[in-house]
């Protein structure tokens, strides 16, 4: 059994003539420790897929299973709990709370889960060290660079030891150097720390860090590519594939 399984996952926005099919019967499987990148043109349904897998939105049709658990069977609160414990999120604009320090931001999911502050901070500190930010743990987001902020977001995503990390354009707001660092870090998340990672990106160079790339177009999976060895020089072949599909 795969870690993530989608069965005919469909999402339609609006009704009647104005209805837009964002996802159309998508079947996708993600294995534990696998790093999957989702690519495709704007409006192809990448983010919608991520949101549905993350339980942020409900499908119009079909279902998502995480570790065998069908998400559509869960209440709003149960979904919140699942996101808190089993899934980690990394966003394009980091979405850190500006009033909290790096360590407090990273500790948030544990605090939401009722873990006591000292323990949560201890764990946050460990994860910040793991992502290379141990020295900046008491800085507020505005005192950190964009790349550093995204590292805090990754630490936050990992703190509850989730089985799946979802990253929506995690490098979309970063310079090239930082982008590479973050992509490498996500690779480490999968390979070293054993989490499955599903990343949405526009950037072939960043997608090339993944084990597998899923190409979406008009809401359906049009291609899937298993990369033999994930590295930066895969970028060229990935770019060629995108051009071929266009």
């Amino acid at each position, binding site marked *: 059994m795969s870690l993530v399984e989608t069965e005919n996952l469909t999402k339609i926005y609006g009704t009647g003539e104005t209805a837009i099919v964002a996802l159309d019967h998508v079947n996708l499987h993600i294995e534990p420790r696998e790093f999957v990148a989702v690519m495709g043109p704007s409006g192809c349904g990448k983010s919608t897929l991520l*949101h549905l897998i993350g339980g942020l*939105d409900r499908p119009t049709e079909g279902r998502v299973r995480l570790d065998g658990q069908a998400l559509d069977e869960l209440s709003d609160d149960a979904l919140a709990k699942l996101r808190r414990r089993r899934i980690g999120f990394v966003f394009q604009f980091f979405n850190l709370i500006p009033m909290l320090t790096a360590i407090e931001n990273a500790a948030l*999911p544990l605090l939401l889960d009722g873990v006591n502050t000292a323990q949560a901070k201890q764990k946050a500190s460990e994860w910040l060290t793991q992502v290379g930010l141990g020295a900046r743990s008491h800085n507020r987001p505005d005192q950190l660079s964009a790349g550093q902020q995204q590292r805090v977001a990754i630490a936050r995503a990992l703190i509850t030891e989730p089985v799946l990390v979802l990253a929506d354009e995690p490098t979309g707001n970063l310079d090239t150097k930082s982008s590479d660092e973050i992509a490498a870090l996500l690779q480490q998340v999968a390979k070293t720390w054993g989490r499955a990672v599903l990343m949405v990106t526009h950037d072939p160079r960043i997608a090339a860090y993944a084990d597998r790339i899923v190409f979406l177009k008009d809401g359906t999976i049009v291609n899937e590519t298993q990369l033999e060895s994930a590295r930066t020089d895969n970028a060229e072949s990935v770019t060629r594939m995108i051009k071929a599909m266009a």
Partner: protein
Amino acid sequence: MNLQLTLAARYLWGRKLRSFLTTLAIVIGVMVIMGTGIYMPTFMEAFQKSMLSASGQTDVMITHKTGEAFSVSVLNRVKNINGIRVAAGVIDRAINLPPNFYGRDADVMGLGIIGIDPNLAPQLRDYTLAQGRFLRQGDGNAAVISQRLADTLKLKLGDALKVPTTEGVVKLTIVGILPSRALIGNEQVLITLSQAQKLLDMPNRITTIEANLTTTDKAQGEAIVNQIKTELGANYTLGGLVSGSEFMGAIQMANVMFGMFGFFTLLMGGFIIFNTFRTIVAERRHDIGMLRAIGASRATIIGLILSEGLAQGVVGTAIGLGLGYLFGVGFVGLAEPMMKQFMNLTFSGGVIVEPALLIISIVLGVGVTLFAGLLPAFTASRVTPIEALRPSVGATITRIGRLSTLVGAGMIVIAILGLLSRRFELVALGGLLFLVGLVLVAPALVRPFANMFGALTARIFAREGTGELAQGNLTRQPSRAAITASATMIGIAIVVGVGGMMFSLTNTVVGLFEKSLGSDYLLLPPSVAIWKGDIGAGQGLANKIRAIDGVGVVSTLRYAQSYAKSAAIEGETMISVLGIDPIEYPKVGSLEFQKGNPADAFAALAREERNVIVNGVLAAQAGLNVGDPLPLSTPEGIQEYRIVAIGGDVLSMKINTAYISQAVMKIDFHKSEDIFYQINLAPNANPATVEQWLNAIVDDYPQFRLVVGREYLAEFRQQYDAIFNGFYVLLAILAFPSLIAILNTLAIGVIERTREIGMLRAIGATRRQVWRTIVAEALLLSALGTAFGILAGLYLSYVIVEGVGATGIFKMTYSLPFTGVLAATAVGLLFGVLAALVPARQASQMEIIKALRYE
């Protein structure tokens, strides 16, 4: 610390200015409620202590229920009761003294003249003297005073103590000095009962019977007391004196006004908190979405917003309680000299803070904040992670609902019908409906209004196109515009409403004043509202004044205290009875009549029958009407009077008052002492000469002050204005928080249009143009809010004026506050621009790239 509280604290700290301003609204509301709640019980306690000290060490103390004097024959009835060891009649009369009566250094504002039976009194109380001798039967102008009074006035045995009496100033020789006692109330001057009856024009009358019983057994004592009650009937009170209803009336009136003020302030505070939380939810859409995405439940989000509300509520309430305490203490401190003068009350017991007041203040302060935060908190909890992370404009703004417009319009119609009904409950309900109705219809009116005023702003910001842009911003999101405008509207409406009411009240009172006290000269006692402590003058003074060449009319007022029972009220109601001369009084002034014909009413009083004019407060409270009987308690028992009209004068507008003829007062109340004089000059009289004569006569009656009518009016107006200026300052404080409300809603507008502003800058708009767009928008919004606010405020003030009229308490004439409207317009627009400065700067300073990427 709990996550929600940590986040709440951080967010509040992160937005210090806004947190401060928002919390300020709660601080002010709680402060007013707390402060108001402090002085009432403090005065009450001081008052009760004063009363308690008047009752003394005797076993039984009998007074007439009215507090008035009664016949000495009652004493004989008491003496005949089995078990009474000794009983004596006493006259206990408080005398207010004019300022500096004993010179500048002597701080004595009142005296208690106690007329006692020198033989019996020592058997009832302990009169151990420090110096000299006790009073003897047959002593004329001899007095025993306390050491403290002797020290204050630097008097010793054998010296003379001057005292104002109905006979003019009398000098009493000090024959004995009592040790000082820790008594609250007037310094006592003991004289013989017979002398007191003479000097105070109370022949054969006493105010109190003091008695000691033959037994010390509690049960037997109670049996004797019951026997006394049976013998004397319900007209007599055993125990302390019942008086001071006038004072309590004035305090309660002030309490109601301040209470109303506190309520309005908290209402405003609640609206601001509501508005602020809306801003917070809009600003933190991304934060909230992220929290939801990483697993925060809806309850967590609600808890987060409410924690912030709770923190602000707790901090605001705590500061409000502290400031309210200081406000109350300050108010008591300011009132103390006046209270000392009128009532000889000192607040030695300190300021009273009742637990109930603390609880109410805390519940209201924290409760209003939490309640105001509820809706935004629920809105925040409904923000889905997707909505928060996805670019979308105006997620928290609702569209114009046709239903809400119709409901709003319906409410306004009902409000107007309520006003037309002239029934107090409907008029009052209408006021609230009108305000809510305006808030509901506001979105539908935004477009026509923006179009109308947009032409003006387009002219102001000509050649830049910012005026049109601002106009477009408003009409595109009428609900948001309406919410911002509503913030201004509620602030302006409350200010114009309360201000308009004050203006009408001032005009009405001054009009009433001119009508009731419009004579050429007045002789005023030390207190013109609390008559009980005033010592008047016998018939001689009026006769002397009438004898002056050039004096045309002299009219006097006499005072007695009474009570009445009515089906409409529980228990008995205290009534201030004023004796007028029905022939002379209408020549120097008049009453403001609400019901009945003035000429017929005065003619009915002149017939020397038991006819009475009651004022509006009494009529409303006791449910009385013209033609109704009014059973008044008098020293001669209950006498039935017939109401011939409802009307009152300015001095008794707050106090239950009944006007009867002086002739009837003499018969029923045995009162012939004039306490207030109104004098008109004869035609062609020489005012200077008359004034000279009047001054010469009044010199012998230092309890009176001669004032020229128009000067008194000016003095009154000045005092009145001083009081209301204080109110206007409070109004300004109340208006200030509405600035925060406008600022918040404008800030939401800027946050929501971040990308649009970025786009404008990208395509070439200068920072200045962006700045001006926001300011122009704010101007339009505040113009809209101010226009609605003035409309609602005028309506509110009219409703209050009509509402007061509908209660029947007294008729207020509505005066349109032109100056107030102009000031409100200026302030409203100024607030709009001021509130726009921060968001406008924020918008104009926005980094283009960041703004474009915002969504």
